[in-house]
């Protein structure tokens, strides 16, 4: 049953006219929001160099754009992106679960202070810290290597907080029972807490993926050579290259778009849960 209209306490309208109206409305919304991306999808397969000929249906379908994009090292950039996302995500999950366990379960002096500090880094995104961050990274000689893009995304307050909130819901009795059976800290963590946290891990996994994929400034600060560019970064160089047609740019953009969209669609349920648990609790 549709609950359209009910949010405002209105009666639901029925009948062919109302249905048609709704369908028209949906079509309009999809066109406005998804249309540009669908045009990107179609035009990437279209043989054309004209920036005005975005199309929803390829008139002259070709894979030439992709072949040309591969000639421009797009696969290398894609690999860089995947390495950064993979490494960053693994690190982030590791940091999040251990930090969250400490925040959710351990009692130690200064707990509230630590919690506040973690929260405050949520307000201090790396954009604002760009200048000092770039200095710190070069002090640690992390510039010019993918590690410089991986390590900073490891500690991410959102993931820690979502995981901590989730762990608080796990009954303490389960842990106590495990301890009575003679399990140590590590074992409790590994065999009791972690398996129960799987939904939370799904949430931070998908969120982390889209967020790290979207990173722009950090790779910009770290990369000293075009060979370290991630795919989003490389789009700008491709655009500036006179010899590269718009089709090649679109093909590369499509490759940069797909992973996060696929991840989003595949794990939509978790994504929505993360969105709301992360936001509404704050």
């Amino acid at each position: 049953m549709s609950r359209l209209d009910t949010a405002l306490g209105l009666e639901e309208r029925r009948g062919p006219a109302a249905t048609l109206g709704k369908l028209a409305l949906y079509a309009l919304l999809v066109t406005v929001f998804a249309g540009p991306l669908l045009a990107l999808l179609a035009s990437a397969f279209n043989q054309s160099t004209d920036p005005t000929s975005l199309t929803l249906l390829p008139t002259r379908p070709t894979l030439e754009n992709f072949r040309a994009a591969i000639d421009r090292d797009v696969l290398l950039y894609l690999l860089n992106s995947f390495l950064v996302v993979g490494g960053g995500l693994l690190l982030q999950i590791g940091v999040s679960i251990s930090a969250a366990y400490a925040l959710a379960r351990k009692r130690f002096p200064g707990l509230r202070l630590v919690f506040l500090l973690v929260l405050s880094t949520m307000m201090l995104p790396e954009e604002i810290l760009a200048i000092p961050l770039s200095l710190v990274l070069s002090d640690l000689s992390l510039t010019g290597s993918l590690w410089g893009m991986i390590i900073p995304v490891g500690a991410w307050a959102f993931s820690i907080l979502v995981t901590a909130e989730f762990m608080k819901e796990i009954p303490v009795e389960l842990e106590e029972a495990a301890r009575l059976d003679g399990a140590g800290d590590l074992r409790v963590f590994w065999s009791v807490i972690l398996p129960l946290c799987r939904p939370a891990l799904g949430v931070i996994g998908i969120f982390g993926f889209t967020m790290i994929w979207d990173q722009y400034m950090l790779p910009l600060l770290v990369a000293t050579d075009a060979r370290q560019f991630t795919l989003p970064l490389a789009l700008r160089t491709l655009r500036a290259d006179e010899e590269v047609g718009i089709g090649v740019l679109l093909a590369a953009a499509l490759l940069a778009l797909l992973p996060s969209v696929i991840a989003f669609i595949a794990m939509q349920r978790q994504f929505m849960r993360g969105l709301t648990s992360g936001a509404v609790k704050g």
Partner: protein
Amino acid sequence: MWRAIEMSFHEVRPYLGDRWVGTANYGQVVTDEAFLEAIGHTLVLAVGQTGGSVVLGLVLALLLEGTARRLWIVRTAVFLPTVTAMAVVAEVWRILYHPAADGAVNTLLGWLGAGPSQFLNSPDSALWSVMAVGVWRGAPYDMMIFLAALAGVDRTLYEAAAADGAGVRRRVWHVTLPALRPAFVILFTLAAIRSLRVFTEIFLLTNGGPNGSTEVLMTLIYKLGLERNELGVAAAGSMVLLAASVALTLAVRLSGARGKEVAR
């Protein structure tokens, strides 16, 4: 962090040692015309994007609320801009905004009888064009938060209110909006912070141009710090931005808290 604060009081000279300049960097930030203009643009963008995407997000949420499968599909489609990497969004919109009369958006404008616009290429329209992209990408996110909040609206209250003779407007005012208040608070906070540190879209769409008409704080800081190596001034700029975000967050939180008490 400490390094940034320290830097903001120095003229940073790599290999020569930093020289203490006191508050001179801050003085430059608050008096320099480029900075003032950038602050102005940042504020316009923050207000426009935040307001635009919250309002549009609420409308979308009300239109697309429900459990039917086709609604779910439409919601997913509408949400796509938000998960797309900003770099891709920027490239797509640069093409859509193609300033010739046969550019995609200009074609649409032509059907509506409006003349072709220069969009990103003209100082008059560049900031608005960037803002529109921001709203396009931000509104679906806000929609999702509102949808979550709407799910918490107690629908029996509507019947009760209707039985008491409350009209539609009073029902919206007294039942729906109070239930959405936490969502508003959180969205204003998030969106305001997000827009203060807007960087990628500007960097990619206009890079501050034309004629500095879209220069925002972050792009200016980036240029000062990493292209012109005036790290001290850039750090001072960052600190101003940071202070603004903290102040804004606290302001939204406080007004939200007071609002809740009034509601009770």
